[in-house]
Every structure is written in structure tokens, then in C-alpha cells.
């Protein structure tokens, strides 16, 4: 009898019933097979020790926790417009080109060539809830509010977009209908930092804030948000008004522009990252970003979702998710447009194929 295949020898260790009598006799008498078996047994024992440990989770308690978890996710977790808005908010909160010196006026046009995942954990989110809100440190004035208009056909939506809105040539049959298209008009907002408001917040909440530098008091940040186009495929709305996640969402946004007058970037960064509610780890990650004009931070819970750099649409992008089919998305910038594409029940390969097929 010829020697027994290594895989069969390995299986015999775990499932001896699958081993035939003839194989058993051969393994016992053949020095070579016996030696392989000994090595395999040693490796299996080693792995067994590495992975040992019984675990007896309480499913009833876990069920209660899951009900709460689902309730906490009323907002779709993979909703790219929200993700992009959050990313932009992060960038806008911190991204002022360092020109050096004080009382400088400057213009920044974001040209993100690199999307950098910022690891936001549940603990970070809970901690952020104690951070002062924007209106507690200054005043936000709406110069021009964004308005959204929904269209039932791509052609009618495209007629209202000032840039070339691209969509995939073909979408999977599972998300082919219904389709909806939304166009958001440009918006403009001005935020002014106020030391008086920060002091009022401190006395009202009995919480200490870092001292606001005198240059920061009165500093204004003007944000111009460009037009946006959103295409949704196969997204259904449920009777209980919770979004169904199985659809495909494509977002295209003109790059925002920021002008500012007042404190330097370093002062702003130092102040904002010292605010209560910003964890040391989050501050460390944001400080490490460096060039915010070209690097856009994307808040992602990378404990739960893998994030990786990919080439998409001919440029560098950030892909979030995996190939299990439980949801994946990708974002990138090309020709002055930030793109986000999310498939709620798709694999990463499917989403990338669609992203590479925009016309």
C-alpha cells in the first residue's frame, strides 16, 4: 500500500472513524507515515493548547443586548451620505492650512488624494457626547442653506447637476428597483468662535474647558459646500420607518472650500483636541494626520469593519468592509468630486466592480 496522504492522516487524528482499517494498519506499520502522524499530532496538540478554553455565553442576556444594539442603529450604519458628511465635518473642524503666524486669512480647497481611516470606537462615541456642541463655543450662521430635490429619473436629476453625475452602467438585479435620485444645492455657512460663549458654557455646566486663546476668539470659518448628487437603488423603506440596508447608494459631492480669518491652524487644532470628550487616542490619530488638505479623515469603527486602501476609478480610495456579503463601501476623489458608493448586502468585489464602471 502506498503512503497515506497527509490530509487523511490529519483527519484521522480528529475523526478516526473516517480512517479505513487498511489505512490504520498501514499507519501503524509504516515508519514514514508514523513519523508524519507524530508531527501532525504534535502540531494539533500545540494548536489545541493555543485555542483551548470553553465558553458558555448567555444567549438570553445577549438577546436583550442585541435588541438595544439594533435600536441604537436606527440610523443606517452604512449610510454613506452621513459618513461623508461626518468626514467633511471632521475635516472642516480641523483643516485649516497652516500658513504660520497669527491673524492670517487663508483659503483652503480640499483635494483629498488620500482617505485615512480614523478608528472611532463605541467608547469614543460615548465620550464625544460630553464634548461641548458647536453652538456652545461659537455661533453658526447660515448664509445659504442646502436644499434637496428628489427626482424619479436620472435624466431629470442630471439636468439639475452642475457636474457630470456618473452612475454604474448596470446594477445587480437584486437592487435594480426602485431607483431614486436626489440633488442637493450648494450651501454656505459661517462659524465664529466666541470666548464669551465658552465661558457661559463653563459656568452653566460646571465643566472646565481649555482656555480659548485670544486669537481664536472672533475667528471666523466660512465653509462652502458644493452641489451633491445621490442615487439610490433598491433601497426600501419598511413599515416601521427603519431603512432597509440591502440597497446600493452612490453619493457624488463637489469638494468643499473653506476660508478662514483669525487664529492659526496650530492654535485651532491644539484647542479643539484639548476639549473634554476627545479621547487621547482620537486626538493622537487626528494629530498624526498632518496634511489635511490632501488627506481626508474618515471616521470608521475599524474594530468592526476592515478599512483598506484600494485603487478605484483609476485613483486611490478607501474601501470599508469585506467579502462576506454583509456590506461594503468605497470612497474616492476624482476630478474635484468626492464619490462614495455603498452596497448594503454586497461584497467588496461587487462594490469595487460597480465603482469602476461609472459612466
Amino acid at each position, binding site marked *: 500500500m502506498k503512503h497515506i*496522504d497527509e490530509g487523511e492522516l490529519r483527519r484521522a487524528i480528529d475523526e478516526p472513524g473516517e480512517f479505513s482499517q487498511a489505512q490504520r494498519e498501514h499507519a501503524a506499520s509504516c515508519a514514514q507515515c508514523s513519523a508524519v502522524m507524530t508531527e501532525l499530532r504534535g502540531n494539533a496538540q500545540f494548536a489545541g493548547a493555543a485555542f483551548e478554553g470553553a465558553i458558555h455565553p448567555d444567549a438570553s442576556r445577549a438577546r436583550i443586548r442585541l435588541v438595544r444594539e439594533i435600536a441604537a442603529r436606527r440610523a443606517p450604519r452604512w449610510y454613506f451620505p452621513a459618513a461623508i458628511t461626518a468626514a467633511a465635518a471632521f475635516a472642516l473642524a480641523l483643516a485649516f492650512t497652516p500658513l504660520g503666524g497669527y491673524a492670517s486669512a487663508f483659503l483652503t480647497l480640499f483635494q483629498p488624494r488620500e482617505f485615512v481611516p480614523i478608528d472611532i470606537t463605541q467608547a469614543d462615541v460615548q465620550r464625544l457626547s460630553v464634548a461641548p456642541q458647536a453652538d456652545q463655543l461659537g455661533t453658526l450662521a447660515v448664509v445659504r442653506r442646502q436644499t434637496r430635490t428628489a427626482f424619479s429619473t436620472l435624466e431629470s436629476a442630471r439636468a439639475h447637476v452642475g457636474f457630470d453625475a456618473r452612475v454604474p452602467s448596470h446594477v445587480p438585479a437584486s437592487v435594480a428597483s426602485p431607483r431614486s435620485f436626489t440633488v442637493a444645492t450648494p450651501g454656505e455657512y459661517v462659524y465664529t468662535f466666541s470666548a464669551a460663549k465658552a465661558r457661559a458654557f463653563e459656568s452653566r455646566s460646571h465643566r472646565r474647558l481649555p482656555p480659548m486663546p485670544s486669537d481664536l476668539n472672533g475667528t471666523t470659518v466660512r465653509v462652502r459646500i458644493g452641489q451633491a448628487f445621490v442615487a439610490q437603488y433598491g433601497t426600501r423603506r419598511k413599515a416601521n420607518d427603519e431603512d432597509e440596508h440591502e440597497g446600493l447608494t452612490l453619493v457624488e459631492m463637489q469638494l468643499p472650500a473653506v476660508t478662514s480669518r483669525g487664529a492659526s491652524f496650530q492654535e485651532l487644532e491644539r484647542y479643539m483636541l484639548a476639549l473634554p470628550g476627545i479621547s487621547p487616542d482620537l486626538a493622537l490619530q487626528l494629530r498624526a494626520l498632518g496634511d489635511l488638505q490632501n488627506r481626508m479623515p474618515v471616521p470608521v469603527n475599524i474594530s468592526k469593519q476592515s478599512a483598506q486602501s484600494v485603487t478605484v476609478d483609476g485613483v486611490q480610495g478607501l474601501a470599508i468592509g469585506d467579502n*462576506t456579503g*454583509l456590506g461594503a463601501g468605497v470612497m474616492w476623489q476624482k476630478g474635484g468630486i468626492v464619490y462614495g458608493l455603498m452596497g448594503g448586502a454586497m461584497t467588496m468585489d461587487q462594490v469595487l466592480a460597480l465603482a469602476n464602471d461609472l459612466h
Partner: protein
Amino acid sequence: MVAATTLIDRDDGFERFFLDEYARVVSIAYRVTRDAAEAEDVAQEVFARTARSPRLRAKGLLYTAAVHSALNLVRAKQRRTAREARRLRLERALEQGGGGQSDPQQVLERRMDVQAVRTALLRLPQRDAELLALRYSGMPYREIASTLNLDAAQIGTRLARAERALKKEIDRETH
């Protein structure tokens, strides 16, 4: 809360699916995380993702998603640990005028045996990590084959290879 309760309670099979599979999913995740609380976090995440979509409720998908999520969690924790160690080193250096007395990394990674297994799993090809997590959670060969879309006859060979690679990586990590 009402909507969520309805979501899990409604008669679309999710409740049964959850109760039947929860312990198995935690057990699979535990082989990777080596931490019971983290394994339960992974299971919560995976079930929360499948709760809304009946067509995603396939066991194979669930089990591989548990391994992927657990690997992601471990990867993120390691990154965070490294950042935390850098921060502590920096703070200590500032406090002591640059003369650090002990390595915070060592303090943070006391549980070296656990860390070694986690690190080794991250270094293995994902397919090997999946195979080891499924096998050492107690799954029989036939079920592993069906979960990973492989022929049952291939499992022994692949497992032998994965165990050899695991031993090599753990040895490298601990010596």
C-alpha cells in the same frame, strides 16, 4: 425601542436563528480573540448586521463573518495598543525629562501568550485563520467544508498546513 423589539420578535425566523447560533458564533470568535467579552462583542456585531436581512442568514456566511470581524477587532486593538504605548512613552518621557524607566509596551502586553496567538492569526493567510477558528471551535470537517465552500477531503491537508504555520508564527512571536 419598540421598533427594535418588533424587529427581533417578528416571526421571520431571526429569533430562532439567533438562539440556535449565538453560542457557536461566540465560540468561533473566541478562538481568535481569546477574550470572552470581545468574542461576545463580535457576535453582537455579526447578528446586528444580519438581523435585517433574512437572505443573509446562512450559517456559512455567519461563521466566516464571525472570523473576519474577530480578526478586525484584534487588528484594531493591536493598532490601538501600539498607539497607546507610544503616547504613554511620550508622556513618561515628558514627566521624567526623557528618562523612561520601563517599557509601557510590556505593561500593556502582559498577556503575552494571548497576544502571541492573536498576532500569529493576523499573520496567517485569512483562509488559514478561518479554518483554525472553525476547527478549534469544535466544528466537524464536513461542516467546515460546507462553510468554506471546500471539498471535505481538502480539510485535513489545509488544516495540517495551517497548524504548521501557526506553530511557526507563535514560536517566532515568543522566542
